[in-house]
């Protein structure tokens, strides 16, 4: 799966994009966020409080309970501030 980070999430984890292998333990967006938070460091900071984050699966807004599949594009970012 391709995982993307935007705004301060990108800054905290120190990269804009990475590949994460889809496993049976990664059923949902929440599972992936927990995996990333467990890495600690910048990841721990970025994913420590999921209430501050939003996610998208395959470029559509998604909740923590959205399910994942191999090949998905998952993005994590703060609430949007456009316009």
């Amino acid at each position, binding site marked *: 799966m391709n995982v993307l980070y935007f705004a301060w999430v990108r800054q905290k984890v120190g990269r804009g994009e990475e590949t994460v292998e889809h496993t049976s333990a990664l059923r949902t967006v929440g599972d992936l966020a927990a995996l990333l938070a467990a890495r600690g460091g910048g990841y721990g900071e970025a994913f420590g409080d999921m209430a501050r984050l939003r996610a998208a699966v395959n*470029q559509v*807004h998604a909740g923590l309970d959205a399910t994942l599949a191999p090949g998905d594009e998952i993005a994590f970012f703060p*609430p*949007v501030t456009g316009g």
Partner: protein
Amino acid sequence: MSANVHIQAEDFDVGDEIEALTAELPQTGAVATFVGLVRGGDDLTALTLEHYPGMTEREIARIAEEARRRWALTGITIIHRVGRLTVGERIVLVAVASAHRANAFEACEFLMDYLKTRAPFWKQEERGGTVQWVEHRAADVAAAERWRKP
């Protein structure tokens, strides 16, 4: 009718965009337009806008499609700039054409409210020497909520 959606670093000319939106559409009687600018104050010198290439365009197209379903429109143009913009520069243009003004005004407001809360853009503010991410505003969420059907 299809919506023109552009995410770009370059500035735009509002007059030219309205002209293009209404050309060859004699049934258009009304064009409501919104232009957002980098507002000065509190030592703000510039904004830097980031987006999610691909998703941003798709999300704006979805919002435009929703507007098209809800109001009788003859055209929509949405341009959102990204990158670093200084005080007074244009950020966003939403132009909506319709036969009648009430539809044009409502759809234009709807599009702005949804852009603010649904389209993946993020802003950093420069004040003096410091740079800080802008938090999303509860007022923007409330503005978008009012379009929800009961």
